[in-house]
């Protein structure tokens, strides 16, 4: 009898923790939470896994992060920002995103000389570029709504490193760390 009396409150406690006082209400709560997390994970903070070496050493291969899709609601991308870019501007919720750094803003002219990036003829200070670079490329003028994006790992060959002009519509947001 004592054993039974002791077991009932424990079972009740576990039941209350797992399914709450009212099962139906708990079910509704779960549905609401799942829906909220789904919307959050799709429209606000998109979970991403870094795959590639073009952003080394800032972002390591296989690193986990979240892309804040609301980062550019109140202001436009700035120079030095790391941004997530969709490959096709028409895809609202893409499976794959590029992670790149903005070095050129609309209307500016970008060039590379002896491994250094130049904006309108002025050498850009890039403390995040840690590896040696030997890139050289003729000036490229950006149009309205166009940003020049490139990875931090410039030790890669120019052809192997995905970089270039991204339109404003391609920029999805910013990684949170």
């Amino acid at each position, binding site marked *: 009898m004592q054993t039974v009396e002791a077991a009932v409150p424990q079972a009740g406690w576990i039941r209350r923790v797992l399914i709450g006082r009212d099962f139906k209400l708990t079910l509704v709560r779960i549905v609401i939470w799942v829906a909220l997390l789904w919307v959050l994970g799709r429209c606000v903070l998109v979970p991403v896994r870094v795959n590639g070496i073009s952003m080394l050493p800032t972002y390591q291969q296989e690193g986990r992060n979240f892309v804040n899709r609301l980062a550019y609601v109140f202001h436009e991308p700035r120079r030095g920002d790391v941004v997530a870019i969709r490959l096709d501007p028409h895809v609202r919720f*893409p499976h794959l995103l590029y992670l790149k750094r903005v070095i050129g803003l609309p209307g500016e002219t970008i060039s590379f000389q002896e491994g250094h990036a130049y904006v309108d003829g002025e050498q850009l200070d890039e403390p995040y570029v840690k590896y040696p670079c030997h890139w050289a490329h003729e000036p490229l003028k950006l149009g309205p709504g166009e940003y020049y994006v490139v990875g931090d790992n410039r030790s890669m060959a120019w052809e192997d490193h995905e970089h270039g002009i991204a339109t404003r519509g391609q920029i999805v947001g910013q990684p949170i760390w």
Partner: protein
Amino acid sequence: MVKRWFLRLVLVAVLAAGAYWAWQFLFPNQEQLIRNELDSLAKAASIAPGESALARLAKAQGLTTYFTTNAQVVVDIPGRIERTLNGREELLEAAGGARASLHSLNVKLLDVQVLLGPDKQSADASMTLEATMPGESVPEVQQVKASLTKVGGEWLIQHAETVRALR
């Protein structure tokens, strides 16, 4: 009373979802047919590890059936590969050569966008091709555009070309 109402609601939701799924399955729209075709193409382009030479040849031949007889495929990845393939013969040759040199390959076509022509007999599609090769932790990613045409009730690729995501 509440319990009965709740159960009825769940039942109606399940029935509605089932009816929608059945309708889509039995009467797929043209856009869905194209998506299915591209999914199937990605599977045909993939190579399973340990696949025999004969199976590879058969799959390479099968791969060409997703294209029209006069299809054109333009691969232009600056600094890496620039090649235009015309017709199924050239496609078969290229696919056979590529498959012979690879141990395995996993191809996925992601973020497929389909724009159906006004005649419903042609369509444009854009997609992201992701190819993972053995021993490579980073997949090859390439944006692709394709024009499809309906031939004998089947959607076939008339023209496909690589597109640079960043210009």
